[in-house]
């Protein structure tokens, strides 16, 4: 075996193999959850009528094709494999078509690298408020176009022996230029793998933990969601906080862990349908409303998304589940029928179809049972509550179905720092030791109203930590943002810290802007 043989092997195949493996790793491990959520935010079915709305749009056929490819992300490892194949094939074909000399072969990976950077650059707009079919349609079409071009070149080459190749004869290459080419090739391959990862982490740090939590929610892995949130506790985005709250509500830790993560809410880089910056405050609200028992508010938003973005598995599944909880059997049947038309979704249909017309089965399902426990206890209108509904409704709730709902209401008041309402609710805790955060909040309030200490004598046990906190907080009272950062490690999870230093930036402005992102006020139908 000569050195030349290994050299040819490297330049011909090993580099591509390395690229392929790294791309598979990137697309299945690093981006697996993100792509899985992109798949859930998409819908495709082999039915002309169902896809007509997309087909009639400009390039609709291409987006349908992209959605078909995206279905492989039902299993991220398969989806990742497809992406790796597309990127590797595209890179090889690009190199072939350009007839790149060995020392310039690193160039062949640049288009794939550009696509990878694009996926990192767009963040949530990879699939949210944008066509999810784009994600894989772009590399697929790139491969198709290059394959056609390569075929023409091969035919032309075979017919015209005088075909002028740009490739420099290998023997004429100096050892130095070959080494430089090899090094550059390794560097570019590594960059294709690492740069998009780094760029995504810098530009959209919430993307992976957020989509990870969403996938965990799909699997009802609430403990996992909580762990993910704790792991990224210093990242603060509305969406992550929302999913964290769901996890805590489901695991019964809302009252003792809600303030464990930073709740300051950094800005998300995303754009609405009209390319205006948007904070995607509706992104998580369907899930939050649904799990908070506000199924009408969840249905409201889900219907709006269905209207604005067309059907997606996520929305159709949510509407099917809401219809089941509400006992709208025929509506459930309709949604399941449509979901069942999509490939790989048979399991979902098989799980929920038997529940149609069987309220006993609905009540026996753990997810539905948890929601039924916290349905709104009385008739009211969604507009009468603060937004977002899952906080606003609970912050203004006055009667309760059970203890669970009372605790949620108290926590919503604490989160929104609505202390008069909170104190009203706390009367119900008199005679018992309230949950941790509620007790800590009561201790703060006892400085204004000492009678609280008489009603809750156990609060004295918390006094020493509070005194320490007051001492530590004192220097930062004029610069709370600095205090938030400086004291986070020591006091995160401690309600007085949140009360003084948490959630300082008002999101009211962003929310009102968020509401203007579609075509509004026509849906009286």
């Amino acid at each position, binding site marked *: 075996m000569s050195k030349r043989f290994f050299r040819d092997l490297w330049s011909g195949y090993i580099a591509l193999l390395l690229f392929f493996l790294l791309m598979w790793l990137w697309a299945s491990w690093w981006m697996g959850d993100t792509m899985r959520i992109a798949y859930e935010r998409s819908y495709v079915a082999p039915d002309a009528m169902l896809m007509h709305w997309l087909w009639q749009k400009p390039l609709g056929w291409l987006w349908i094709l992209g959605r078909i490819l995206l279905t492989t992300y039902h299993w991220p490892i398969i989806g990742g494999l497809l992406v790796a194949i597309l990127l590797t094939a595209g890179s090889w074909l690009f190199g072939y078509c350009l007839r790149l000399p060995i020392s310039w072969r690193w160039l062949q990976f640049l288009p794939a690298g550009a696509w990878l950077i694009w996926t990192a650059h767009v963040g949530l707009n990879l699939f949210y408020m944008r066509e999810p079919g784009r994600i894989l349609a772009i590399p697929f079409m790139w491969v198709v176009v290059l394959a056609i071009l390569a075929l023409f070149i091969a035919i032309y080459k075979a017919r015209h022996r005088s075909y002028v190749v740009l490739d420099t004869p290998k023997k004429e290459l100096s050892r130095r230029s070959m080494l430089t080419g090899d090094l550059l090739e390794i560097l570019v391959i590594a960059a294709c793998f690492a740069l998009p990862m780094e760029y995504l982490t810098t530009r959209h740090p919430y993307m992976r933990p957020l989509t990870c939590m969403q996938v965990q929610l799909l699997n009802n892995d609430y403990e996992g969601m909580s762990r993910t949130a704790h792991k990224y506790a210093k990242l603060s985005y509305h969406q992550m906080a929302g999913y964290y709250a769901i996890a805590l509500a489901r695991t019964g830790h809302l009252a003792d862990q809600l303030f464990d993560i930073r709740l300051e809410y950094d800005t998300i880089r995303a754009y609405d349908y009209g390319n205006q910056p948007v904070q995607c405050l509706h992104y998580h609200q369907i899930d939050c409303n649904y799990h908070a028992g506000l199924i009408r508010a969840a249905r409201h938003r889900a219907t*709006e998304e*269905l*209207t604005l973005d067309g059907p997606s598995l996520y929305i159709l599944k949510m509407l099917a589940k809401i219809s089941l909880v509400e006992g709208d059997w025929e509506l459930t049947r309709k949604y399941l029928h449509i979901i069942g038309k999509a*490939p*790989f979704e048979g399991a979902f249909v098989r799980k929920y179809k038997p529940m149609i017309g069987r309220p006993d089965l609905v009540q026996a399902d753990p997810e539905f049972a948890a929601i039924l426990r916290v349905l709104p206890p009385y008739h009211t*209108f*969604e507009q009468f509550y603060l937004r977002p509904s899952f906080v606003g409704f609970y912050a203004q709730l006055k009667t309760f179905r059970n203890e669970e709902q009372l605790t949620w209401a108290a926590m919503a008041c604490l989160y929104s720092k609505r202390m008069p309402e909170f104190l009203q609710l706390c009367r119900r805790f008199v005679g018992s030791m309230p949950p941790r955060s509620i007790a800590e909040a009561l201790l703060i309030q006892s400085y204004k109203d000492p009678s609280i200490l008489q009603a809750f004598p156990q609060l004295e046990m918390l006094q020493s930590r509070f005194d320490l906190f007051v001492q530590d907080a004192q220097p930062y009272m004029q610069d709370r943002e600095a205090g938030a950062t400086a004291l986070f490690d020591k006091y995160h999870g401690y309600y007085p810290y949140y009360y003084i230093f948490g959630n300082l930036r008002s999101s009211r402005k962003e929310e009102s802007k968020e509401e203007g992102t579609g075509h509004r006020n*026509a849906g*009286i139908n």
Partner: protein
Amino acid sequence: MKTSNHISHILHHLSFMAKVCGWATLLIACSSKPSAVPTAFTETTDSLAMYPDYRDVTIPPNIAPLNFQLNDSSATEFVVAFESEVAPKAGFSCGACEDGKIDIDLSLWRQLLYDARGRSLTVSVYAHRPAGWVRYQPFTMRVAEEEIDPYLTYRLIEPGYEYYSQLGIYQRNLTNFDVETVYENDRTFSSDNCHCINCHNFQANDTERMILHVRENHKGTIVTHGNDAYKMIIKHDSILASGAYACWHPTLPLVAFSSNKTAQVFHMNYNEKIEVYDAASDLILFDADNNEVRTILRTSDHFETFPCWSADGTRLYYCTARLPKMPEENFEANLVLRYDSLLYDIYSMPFDTVTYTFGEPQIEINASAQHKSCSVPRVSPDGRYLVFAYASYGQFHLYHKDSDLWCKDLQEGNLYPLTESNSNDVESYHSWSSNSRWQVFSSRRDDGDYTRTYIAYFDAQGQGHRAFLLPQRDPEYNLLLLKSYNCPELTKNAVQVSTEQIRHLIYNTEAELATYKE
């Protein structure tokens, strides 16, 4: 267990690949082949599962084939025989597609309905089960003498709450499955161009004169006269808001509009999902030939809405509700809390077709006395019957599950529900055929959420018959459609202005402001 799951996954995967490979072929609808009626079979008492359910309905002699889908998991094949009761019996039979869909041949169907006009059809369904052929209990369809107006214009829109996206007004030829686009808004988002279209209305079931509204960008009211069309803004300081619900005078170039300040609220825990209410509403009259608008009724203590002309145009019917007593402070919030105390009666006013003046209102239906509420009154073109939606409260009965169609015999004065045509869910917006024998209306009876268009025979004795779903070439269509049918209107002829004409008007023409006349 795990292995079987794995195999199941692989099978699903393979099935999907097969589907993908056959994508193009799936775009082509299956067509039922003529098939021989089995000679040997046993009768079954099993309930026939078919969608849509066309059993025992009365149908127009010019209606498109009533394709349907059969569901019998144990059957591998279906044959359906249609026979008319004329002697000698005429008819045909056809087989179902693999998925149980019956796609009836249009020419055979037309011939059959021609033969059976004024009589009944018998439909026999045969299913091939492992033990052999079985026949379900045959059912009948009665073919009426009277034809239905051949065109149905409707809007398709997602049943969204506050937002809209792509929507359009379409026209269906009821004698076949042809659908023409009257107008569609943009398919992609543009903040400068997005607009909503709604409330199309025709003069006396004729497309010679039509209106439709455009809201948000490029707003205005499109008014057509034959092949001509222009854009108006029917608004003035003296008017509450732009014209909303409209009704063309049957002979004069006049449109009665309601002018509404409409809003909606969303129930969090209630049988209904949405409440649409008016915070104020008046009636206005638009003279299409002179581009003039004037007030018909403006009251501070009443809401007036849903105007409707009598068949001869000498009387205007409308719904009106007394504003409940409540504090003036936080008016809208207080009004919302009293949403179920807004009860609409139907009144009418005489109209002088020479001086264009209205007389004193008189009550037609005192629904509030029964703690009920009326909406969408429509007088039959023969002038005999007034059909309206009737529910417990409010005026937007499309969101009230107890809303039914009721009828008042204007000659005899008696009032009754159209029981046969109604269902347990919403019946609302309805339209008459020009011969007064057919009604189309909106109903949510299929699934409670998506409005569908139903057709019902209305006999000479003023009784509504069992309604049937607007037939589609693919019977699965309505199960898959994620849009609602809105404002169904029957006409004798096709819309005369083109889609391009309307688009040009909307995009390139400045709307003319109507003159207000005191």
